[in-house]
């Protein structure tokens, strides 16, 4: 029913034949695909639809350039963490200068979240489905579009007891010393140790809901037109990659150690200063997919503990 008005994206099992335990957000086109209502974090976060891995910023033919269209999509089944990730990405791409390409996609996106927690007060959504039992969901509309879905035949009016289930904030990520600890840790041995095990592959950036660095490049279309046709595109990048800060004559961050530090610095120092929140929603994707089994929580805990120890000694 939803697919009539939107391209519907929902979590599905990556490979049903092999009974894979991995899930992905995928476009639902036919009736044969079973949408997961309860699933572990998908491989890629929903950012892949708002800031696609390869995106056309504008197309041109001869003299005329036009911004590319964004189709109307509905992302179904976001967890509260992924919803929070989108909410933060929205703010990043609207301040201090708004990115039109992102804004356009986002304006054409409907978010339907599902989680066991009570609906969040500070995060906007179109529809929030609170799972109250195995087969029962309580729907909350957060927008006009959400209201429309809620009023459709998909939902029944019923009286149920709704518990209040609050998501507690993560004590590590909300530790008030974390920002200072990371900021002051440039010389900490942990970055040298990480550089010994990290492959510098950038997978942690790709799977992160809040890594958004990018490259741009031009593509030329060789078609029928007599005019030069092509597009300027944006693709995902990662600050972990060696050439990330390289200009034609100098690489400003050639050492892996410094690139690793910059990754943490961005998430836990630069982003909180710029936007008031860390670049992490604790979805654990970077831990699951890191080929070197690096766990950012252990890194943060070590740096934070050493910072606190040093501060105690100073007092």
């Amino acid at each position, binding site marked *: 029913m939803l697919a009539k008005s939107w391209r519907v994206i929902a979590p599905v099992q990556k490979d049903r034949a092999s009974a894979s335990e991995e899930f992905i957000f995928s476009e639902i086109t036919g009736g044969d695909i079973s949408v997961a209502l309860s699933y572990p974090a998908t491989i890629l976060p929903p950012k892949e639809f708002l800031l696609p891995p390869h995106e056309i*910023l*504008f197309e*041109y033919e001869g*003299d005329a*350039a*036009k*911004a590319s269209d964004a189709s109307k999509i509905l992302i179904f089944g976001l967890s509260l963490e992924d919803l929070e990730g989108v909410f933060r990405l929205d703010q*990043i*791409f*609207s301040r*201090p*200068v*708004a*990115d*039109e*390409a992102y*804004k356009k996609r986002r304006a054409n996106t409907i978010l339907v979240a599902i989680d066991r927690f009570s609906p969040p007060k500070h995060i906007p959504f179109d529809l929030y489905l609170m799972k109250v039992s195995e087969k029962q969901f309580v729907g909350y509309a957060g927008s006009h579009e959400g209201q429309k879905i809620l009023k459709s035949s998909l939902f029944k009016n019923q009286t149920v007891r709704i518990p209040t289930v609050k998501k507690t904030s993560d004590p590590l990520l909300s530790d008030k010393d974390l920002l200072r600890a990371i900021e002051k840790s*440039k010389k900490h041995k942990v970055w040298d140790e990480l550089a010994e095990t990290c492959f510098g592959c950038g997978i942690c950036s790709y799977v992160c809901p809040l890594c*958004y*660095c*990018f*490259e*741009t*490049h*031009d593509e*030329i279309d060789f078609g029928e037109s007599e005019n*030069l046709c*092509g597009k*300027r595109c944006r693709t995902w*990048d990662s*600050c972990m990659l060696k050439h*990330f*800060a*390289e*200009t*034609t*004559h*100098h690489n*400003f*961050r050639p050492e892996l150690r410094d690139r690793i530090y*910059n990754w943490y*610095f*961005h998430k836990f*120092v*630069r982003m909180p*200063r710029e936007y008031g929140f860390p670049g992490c929603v604790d979805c654990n994707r970077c831990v699951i997919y890191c080929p070197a089994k690096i766990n950012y929580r252990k890194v943060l805990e070590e740096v934070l503990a050493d910072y606190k120890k040093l501060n105690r000694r100073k007092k």
Partner: protein
Amino acid sequence: MRTHNWIPRKAKIAERRSLTENIVGLRLKFTAGRPFSFHPGQFVMLSVLGFGEIPIGITTSPAEKGFFEVAVSSIGMVSQKICSLSVGDEVGVNGPFGNGFPLSKIKGKDVVLLAGGFGLAPLRSLIHLVQKDKKMFKSLKILSGARNPKFLLYRDEYKDWEKFAEVYLTVDEGDSTWKGCVGNITKLFDRINVDAGSVIIVCGPPPMFKPIINRYAGKRVAESDLLLLLERRMKCGIGKCQHCTCGKLYVCLDGPVFSYDQLKYNDEAFR
């Protein structure tokens, strides 16, 4: 709220001249639309469709109406393409971006410009502004160094500049025509008097910064009055792509003009 839609404005190359064997100066005029307003020291993202977009400093002042100029060094794929264009060809322009020089802060002061090679290009926007408003600074000294005489930018303009500024030049290696100073730009320091309370503005390769900082910062010149221009890789100009970050600063938003006290404890600034 400022927005960025990525589609560049079209500008025509009105004039083109070789500044050195691999640096080209272009005068650009927008083909349509609103007048272009910018601060000296800002930069644009310059592009050629099918090739890509690169950050390039503006080299003329806002007092010059109807056009602006840039200097492009032919080293990467996009810059090589831009340098190969002819008068009448079109380029794309996004921007202006960045903070530019803090004019209200430096007005009425003794100003010393220190340029290393290509670094003279963005400083020229300030020189051209003074050319129109000669009372803008109490005094202006221009110190410019290059690898050899052929790499000195805007040589045909120095005579005009000498009407309102003291111009000092040096080259690492002289040739048969060169009668001026030979040696590093630090050699020129001994020839000038930097009065207390002066403002020094530096643009050039990063190794140039240290001797200047050591000699002047917090001594004859306040740390907040020593201004340094940084150059980084950039893909957006709006503080998103992350390529130009230096610790907590963005060169595209907070810079490219920084005061030394802003960068003093920033490990990533002086690489």
